[in-house]
């Protein structure tokens, strides 16, 4: 084309481009879809995600950079992009019946969701801080709107506003960090930063900049002490949005975090490793301890999501050790995938029990579920066991992998914190199981095809992948090997 854009620039981020175009087209197409047939918009959105997923899968194994090194396509990005697109598909599947039942059915829902996925994908592929910033905004702003979608409910409105205000605040940290890093190194590209940093000038500014970046990402993935927004937003937002947010934003946030710190700041490992370790330990402890006292299932899962951010962060602690790094990051990616699968299933069950006006969301509303609806209760049991890290579920394999990496990296104390907090978490996850099996109650459950499909499929995947984790392991490992 010209000196500004090459075809290879476009192919590097082709899945994101396709999805962007599709989302824009969907926005227009939605105008012509009558109000009582908004299900069509969901189907079209799912087709767009599937098309993008198809393109992503053809990219497996390929590597390229685009836009003068601002975005990268590699094994890491295809692995995570595939995960994000699948998350998007689950997000649509969960929303399909839910938004109608709750009276929230609007075409914008799906368009916003697609734009958010585009932001997440760009975040995964970014190799320049400016792109990270743009991608972060692109993923966040639709989520702010989606969180407040049920504006007639004061909680949803509060969720949207809180998420927006705190999110903007954290973005401020991120931008300030980028500015300081640019000041210290004269570059915003990862390779430029690394080159400048390894010559060893202005270390302090760079360290402060990196710390501020960590705050920004820590907010997105809900790491303690940047987690305060999570319970309120997760509780207030429509449940289908929460499910998508809990997986998607975490995947994107961790991906960007990892890429930035591994590629741009390898010189800062000595300063940053103890900080990562402390944050991971703090997140696991605080998340799990506060979850113990929750009685609302959405808040319980919100704190569980915070705790899991701690587990995943644990995988990045030994990132400065070149021998352990590939295994440990692969463990983190595997755990992210395991968490995403389990998470969608658990939120699917929550949606199945939720009623109009925020009813049906107490843990006690699950009493007697097994005797009313066996498959649903069994699926929820599988998800709870997986979140504890108990066999036969993928969560157990994930934790096995994760703790092994941490011990391999020499952080036995962190692994001990990890297993002890897992034990604490067993207490509150089991409370859900106790209610479903051992208490008497008359729970009402909703049943919609795509909802049942989502929790059914994820429950099967959670169990089956624990017996045959090899392919996912292999993919996660190769994804990391191509990162460097």
């Amino acid at each position, binding site marked *: 084309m010209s000196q500004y854009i090459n075809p290879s620039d476009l192919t590097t981020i082709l899945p994101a481009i396709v999805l962007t175009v599709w989302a824009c087209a969907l926005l227009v197409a939605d105008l012509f879809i009558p109000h009582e047939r908004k299900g069509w918009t969901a189907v079209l959105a799912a087709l767009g995600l599937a098309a993008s997923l198809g393109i992503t899968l053809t990219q497996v194994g390929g590597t390229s950079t685009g836009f003068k090194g601002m975005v990268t396509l590699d094994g890491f990005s295809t692995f995570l992009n595939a995960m994000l697109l699948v998350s998007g598909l689950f997000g649509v599947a969960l929303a399909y019946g839910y938004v109608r039942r709750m009276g929230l059915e609007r075409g914008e829902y799906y368009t916003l969701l697609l734009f958010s996925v585009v932001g997440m994908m760009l975040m995964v592929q970014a190799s320049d801080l400016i792109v990270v910033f743009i991608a972060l905004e692109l993923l966040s702003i639709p989520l702010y709107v989606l969180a407040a979608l049920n504006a007639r409910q004061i909680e949803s409105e509060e969720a949207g506003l809180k998420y927006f205000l705190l999110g903007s605040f954290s973005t401020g940290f991120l931008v300030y960090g980028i500015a300081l890093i640019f000041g210290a190194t004269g570059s915003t590209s990862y390779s430029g930063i690394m080159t400048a940093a390894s010559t060893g000038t202005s270390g302090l500014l760079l360290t402060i900049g990196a710390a501020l970046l960590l705050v920004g990402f820590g907010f997105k993935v809900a790491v303690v002490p940047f987690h305060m927004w999570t319970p309120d937003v997760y509780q207030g937002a429509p449940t289908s949005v929460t499910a998508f947010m809990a997986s998607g934003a975490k995947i994107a946030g961790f991906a960007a975090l990892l890429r930035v710190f591994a590629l741009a700041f390898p010189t800062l490992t000595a300063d940053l490793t103890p900080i990562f370790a402390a944050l991971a330990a703090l997140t696991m402890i605080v998340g799990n301890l506060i979850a113990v006292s929750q009685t609302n299932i959405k808040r319980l899962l919100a704190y569980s999501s915070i705790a899991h951010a701690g587990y995943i962060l644990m995988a990045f602690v030994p990132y400065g050790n070149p021998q352990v790094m*590939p295994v440990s990051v692969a463990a983190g990616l595997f755990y992210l995938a395991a968490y995403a699968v389990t998470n969608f299933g658990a939120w699917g069950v929550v949606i199945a029990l939720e009623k109009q006006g925020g009813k049906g969301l107490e843990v006690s509303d699950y009493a007697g579920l097994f005797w009313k609806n066996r498959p649903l209760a069994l699926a929820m049991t599988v998800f709870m066991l997986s979140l504890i890290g*108990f066999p036969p579920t993928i969560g157990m394999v994930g934790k*096995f992998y994760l703790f092994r990496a941490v*011990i391999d990296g020499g952080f036995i104390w962190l692994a001990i914190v990890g297993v002890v907090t897992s*034990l604490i978490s*067993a207490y509150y996850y089991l409370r859900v199981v*106790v209610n479903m099996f*051992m208490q008497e109650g008359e729970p009402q459950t909703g049943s919609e095809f795509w909802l049942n499909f989502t929790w059914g499929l994820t429950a099967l995947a959670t169990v089956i992948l624990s017996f045959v984790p090899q392919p996912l*392991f292999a993919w996660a490992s190769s994804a990391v090997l191509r990162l460097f």
Partner: protein
Amino acid sequence: MEFLSQPLTLLTFFPLLGVLALAFIPGERKNLLRWTALVTTLVTFGLSLWVLSMFDASNPSLQLGKPYDWITVAGWNIQYHLGVDGLSILLVLLTAFLTPISILSTWTAVEERVKDFMMFFLLLEVGMMGVFLAQDLFLFYIFWEFTLVPMYFLIGIWGGPRRIYAAVKFFLYTMAGSILMLLAILWLGIYQQTFSVPEMIAKGGIPNGVQFWLFLAFTAAFAIKVPMWPLHSWLPDAHVEAPTAGSVILAGVLLKMGTYGFLRFNIPLFPQAAVQMAPWIALFATIGIIYGAAVSYAQSDVKKLVAYSSVSHLGFVMLGMFALNEQGIEGAILQMINHGLSTGALFLLIGMIYEQTHTREIKVYGGLWKITPIFGTIMLIASLSSMGLPGLNGFVGEFTILLGAFGSQAIGSPWFAGISAAGVIMAAVYILYMFQKMFLGPTGSIVEEVKHHGHALRDLNWREILTVLPLLIFIFWIGLYPKPFFDLMTPTVHNLVAALPLP
């Protein structure tokens, strides 16, 4: 897919077919459900006998299975490896033997949610078999943790009034130990570059200081399961609340998973640490023997009495095992079986009388022998077996254990065995006290009360006799002629002891 046709794989996973069959039977057809579960477990028992027939007792190493690569990526080397040797063959048989008996005991005791009960029970059997057969630490850990899940539901759904408390306590207590073991397993996996137990034993070479910590981490998991004093407090709650069949399996098999773990992992993987720690384990075992016996005597609930007697009996098993000589370990293995038989019988019998009276308070009973002579006789045999009367199985086990512990180099002092011998006498005290109060003397108030409700106290029916009869046969068989049982384990135990760095 060749591994699917392996005898041990079939033995382990056969009950899953039963689960599948149960899933298609409507919940109202309770008898069909019971028969399906019973037939499944009987076939499993048949499979275990088939395994026994192929088992070569003179061969000390692992048999009837070979490793298959399962997960091999990025420094992982996890195998699907089931195998059986002299340490586990008897426990495998015990598991397959006790499960149908437990199912039979639920015939009239479990009337609600029969389908789910049977499904959980068969899943439990899969987990237990896997624990005794797995030769890869990852595989073992999966089975080990998995057994918790069905047992948790069995206690929590079909248990007594405080079932939820007991179930959650059981789950969390056991998990607390397991997670420490998990860390040790991971450390070993990294250090030895494999999770295969035979390979790890062959490689050895773990530094002495590290062995100590790894030994402790494994001990945390197993000592809670056994349970060793002072980690036993979950056991009485779990037993009292569990349904009869759950108690039988809990005492008969699940506790043995702990003692078996010591035998299979702690001793051969960390031999130096095992030798160093032997006196300490012996000390805790001795305290457990005396403490369990003393607390048993103080119980007013007969099920709790038997539960605490388990703490005492398993103290003997631990003492014998950490004598770290052939006699001690063989006695310990045999005593594991004995405890499964006699305590299993006691729990079954208590369950049978409880079904009629709905109380387990010792003081409301009395003079039962006159009213229910068959029940009284069988109870007497089971009680005498439990207290170690010569001629019955308990005596052989305890005697061999004490013999081993007296002469043990590893323990280093005959005092532990000497004090433990007092535990045998104390067992006589609490068992005979229980028997006297319930079966002899003046007729207890419960007899009148039951009559008041319209039906007199009846003796055992044919099904109940059939349930306990197999146990009685083995109680006498082991008591009178234990040689075939010892023969199964001797070569393996000989090799195990020979590899120990005894002073």
